[in-house]
């Protein structure tokens, strides 16, 4: 039965994508309700199944890899599937109200949305490198399409830049895959790791790993390869930005992390680990700093994504040749960081969308006085900010706590400093927004109120990301050993 569930996770979205291709925006919107319900249901069922039976392998249509599509689900995967369901549903609900149905090109929103979802699930569930590539491409293409839905000229410029970056990234990754296959003759991650264990002398594997990581870093917008991200995320419609920041980036990082944990021990080196960490740190500092300077609200949030992604790459130094327990802590911390950032960032983008909607301007300084009219959105923005600042009790804090433990435990205290500084810098840009909204001087009082639902959704997400810290223990328990092979 679990097989059906996993298949469902892949095929429901595809089916809905095709269906809503035919329908217009409004019809697709009605359709989406059902689809989201189904997806949510399936995800929860799968989660329950995993909870009592553990991880599972499944070859689609009984074709063995590499020809067939091989699916693999473990605690971590199912956690991400749930996360995807949550965030995607939230964004879908928001988009249904937020997007203007009269714009002709909006009718492409739902198909792209569903394709994206399918791609994400494919990545979470994928077990061999090539399928992951396909999933990545699916994600990238639909994401680019979504960005392009902004419609205006700069939206297209942003989406084009995004497209090029994404494709280059995937090609790097594919080249790496090619080398791997050339070396080992297999594509299953587990098999590759196994072989790499046996004969480490193969230089090709190293290069392949490097290429793949580089490509994925580009797709994850690791500093200094982040140039494409702020325009794309900043200009897309808010629900889209939320999807991109919350989930899309995580997909490529998820693959990178799994590669690293499988091959890093044998093929990686201290240098690589530290380099990745250093780039991550640079991303944290640079991204936050840029966020403090951005004149436009959504740009601030976009740069904050650059910064938050930086944290993720601290995984590399913190898991390379350290004791299992520390690596464990690092991985748990990382997973919590992924989840809480996904929730918080989605909430933030949606709330920012509401604020922009009601002030009618995207400038930060035009927020003056909005606090009196949109306290709710502002409050959810703030709650999400709490998680980004990684203050307790948010999930961000739980993540940071585990990471701090890992850094101190592994004696790499300099990363601890990065974590602390990053928290402070993020506080700087979040409070910049608050500061602006508390200003009383502004004369403009013609704020228009978005519908209640638009305000409720970000609040729900923000509360989730806030509560994650309190519920950290059970969540970690569910996801069991993260990144474990054949769960």
């Amino acid at each position, binding site marked *: 039965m679990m097989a059906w569930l996993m298949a469902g996770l892949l095929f429901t979205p595809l089916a809905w994508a095709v269906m809503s291709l035919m329908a217009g925006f409004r019809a697709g919107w009605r359709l989406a309700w059902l689809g989201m319900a189904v997806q949510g249901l399936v995800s929860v069922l799968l989660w329950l199944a995993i909870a009592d039976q553990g991880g599972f392998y499944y070859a689609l249509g009984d074709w063995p890899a590499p020809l067939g599509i091989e699916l693999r689900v473990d605690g971590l995967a199912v956690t991400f599937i749930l996360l995807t369901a949550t965030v995607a549903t939230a964004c879908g609900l928001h988009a249904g109200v937020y997007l203007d149905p009269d714009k002709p090109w909006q009718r492409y929103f739902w198909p792209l949305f569903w394709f994206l979802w399918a791609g994400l699930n494919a990545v979470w569930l994928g077990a061999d490198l090539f399928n992951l590539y396909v999933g990545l491409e699916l994600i990238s293409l639909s994401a680019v399409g979504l960005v392009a839905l902004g419609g205006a000229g700069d939206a297209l410029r942003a989406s084009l830049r995004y497209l090029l970056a994404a494709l*280059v990234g995937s090609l790097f990754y594919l080249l790496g895959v090619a080398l791997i296959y050339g070396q080992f003759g297999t594509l299953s991650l587990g098999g590759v790791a196994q072989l790499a264990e046996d004969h480490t*002398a193969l230089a090709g594997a*190293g290069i392949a790993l490097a290429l793949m990581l580089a490509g994925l870093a580009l797709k994850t917008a690791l500093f200094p390869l982040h140039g494409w991200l702020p325009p794309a995320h900043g200009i897309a419609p808010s629900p889209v930005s939320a999807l991109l920041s919350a989930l899309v980036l995580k997909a490529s990082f998820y693959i990178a992390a799994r590669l690293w944990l499988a091959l890093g021990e044998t093929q990686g080196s201290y240098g690589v680990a530290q380099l990745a960490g250093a780039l991550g740190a640079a991303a944290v500092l640079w991204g936050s700093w840029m966020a403090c*300077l951005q004149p436009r609200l959504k740009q601030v949030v976009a740069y904050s994504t650059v910064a938050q992604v930086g944290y993720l790459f601290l995984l590399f130094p913190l898991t390379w040749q350290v004791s299992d327990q520390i690596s464990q802590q690092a991985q748990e911390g990382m997973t919590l960081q992924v989840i809480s950032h996904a929730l918080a960032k989605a909430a933030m983008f949606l709330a920012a969308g509401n604020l922009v909607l009601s002030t009618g301007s995207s400038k930060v300084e035009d927020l003056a006085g909005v606090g009196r009219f949109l306290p709710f959105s502002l409050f959810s923005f703030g709650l999400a900010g709490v998680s980004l600042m990684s203050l307790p009790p948010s999930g961000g804090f739980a993540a940071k706590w585990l990471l701090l433990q890992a850094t101190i435990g592994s004696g790499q205290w300099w990363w601890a400093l990065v974590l602390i500084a990053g928290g402070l810098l993020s506080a700087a840009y979040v409070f910049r927004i608050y500061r602006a909204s508390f200003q009383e001087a502004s004369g403009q009082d013609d704020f228009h109120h978005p519908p209640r639902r638009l305000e409720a959704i970000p609040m729900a997400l923000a509360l989730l990301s806030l509560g994650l810290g309190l519920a950290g223990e059970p969540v970690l328990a569910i996801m069991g050993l993260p990144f474990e092979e054949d769960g």
Partner: protein
Amino acid sequence: MMPVLPFLVIATVGLPLLWLLTMPFAGRWQRFGLPILPLPALILALASTSGWQWSLPWLLMDSQWLLDDLRRTFLTLTALLWSTAGVFALGYLDNRNLNRFLVFWCLTLTGNLGLVIAGDAASFYTFFALMTFASYGLVVHDGTAEALRAGRVYMVMAVAGEMLLLAGLMLAAEEADSLLLTELASAVATAPRAQLIIGLLITGFGVKAGLPLLHFWLPLAHPVAPTPASAVLSGAMIKAGLLGWVLTLPLGQASPGNWGDLMVVAGAVASLGGALAGICQQQTKAVLAYSSISQMGLVMLLVGAALATPDRAAVIVPVIALYALHHGLAKGALFLSTAVHPPAAGPVRWAYWLLLALPGFSLAGLPWTSGALAKLAMKEALASDQLTMATATWLSPMMTAGAVATLLLILRFLWLHHTQAEPSANPRWRIAGWLLTVAGSGLVFWVLPWQAGDLVEQPYWLPKAYQYPALLAPIGLALTAGVLAALLVRRAPAVPPGDLLALWPSRRPFPGAVRVQPAPPGENLRRWANTVSALSVGAETHMRSGGLLALAVVVLLVALINQVS
């Protein structure tokens, strides 16, 4: 009647405070409470027997109320003087700021009465501080420029004194591990830090008691206050410092250092120097203030002697109380008389001058007055053969000189009053208050609870024949000197009140008035931040065309991995 005493204690301390609460209703009739408020204390002093004590553990830090002979004498003085001064005040006060005056009067009264009957350091210090701070209101009541100046000086000195005192009491309490004054004093004697503690206590109370060098607030503050206030300031409150000395210093126990001699020297300086500075004063109340300093100097001789010779302490202490009582009443009468205008002419005028001079001469030890008794008892108590101290032999000449100086001051006062006071009518209450005080000093004194021990034979009021020369010699001396001075010296050299303070560069004692602008926030820092942000924005835009960077990163990664594997 014992069970009554607690209520009397409560009334003593509580009545003035309760009286304050009636302010909203009583209106201007409230002033008529002034003479009545101290009466419970007076009854308490007269009714109670020595050695009565009452402890309230839940109050403050387990407080204790205590009455012995010493305290009864002081309590009598305080209550009596405050009461008569109250009567006087009825005829003195106008409606300007009346309520404010009443408030501070009541508070000061509470403090002054309470500290006398307090048995533990905490409550003693409490009432002492209450009196100190509240009397500021009395000093600056008139609000004139010099009143405010005097008030500032007084406050500075008072705060300093309070702090010295607090330090001394803390150290003592820590040594004694108790707050009872009796144990405090005995613990001080044996404490390792005895020297420090004694020094602190002497100076701390010295501020109030006009110890030389700490005295200069006194001739400033006492004159500027409204007359009834200066009467109690100079008559009763100044004794609080004295009482503090007697209660906290280890009298009767051998204590390190020769603080006794120091006290004697200080007393000598005070009595003569005070007289000297006082003679050169231009206004009557200032003269009287200096006379108080000089009188307190004489009492310091006693304290010093008691401190230096433990076995005589038991004899000396009652004399101190006696002297304090005598001086308090007399000085109160003198201060009040400054505000009583002389009648135009006739026998009343003669009576006026007589009653005016009587307390003064009593201070100088005129026979048949309380002064004579005090002087005799003092002489006996300080008989040099009994004392074992360096300055013992100097004491009796010192006393004679002191008596001369005292009378000279009185003469100066009378002279000034004669020249300055112009005849006119007096309010009835004023006369009453003044007469009551004079009567108190001249007659009632003899029935009050004080001990002269067996130092002076009965009847106390009638000196023995052989004692007259000793009493009259200084008076004659002073009179001749005064007459000569009046004939020879055209105008006395003028010394500003608060002698030493004149040397002080005049500035505002409270730096609070100084205006300092906070430093401006770092402008250059902000400029720096701006440039940095501009630079980073530029860098970001270039990074957009970051393909090359991407390539660099890839190459770097490849290189790194190859050099390993």
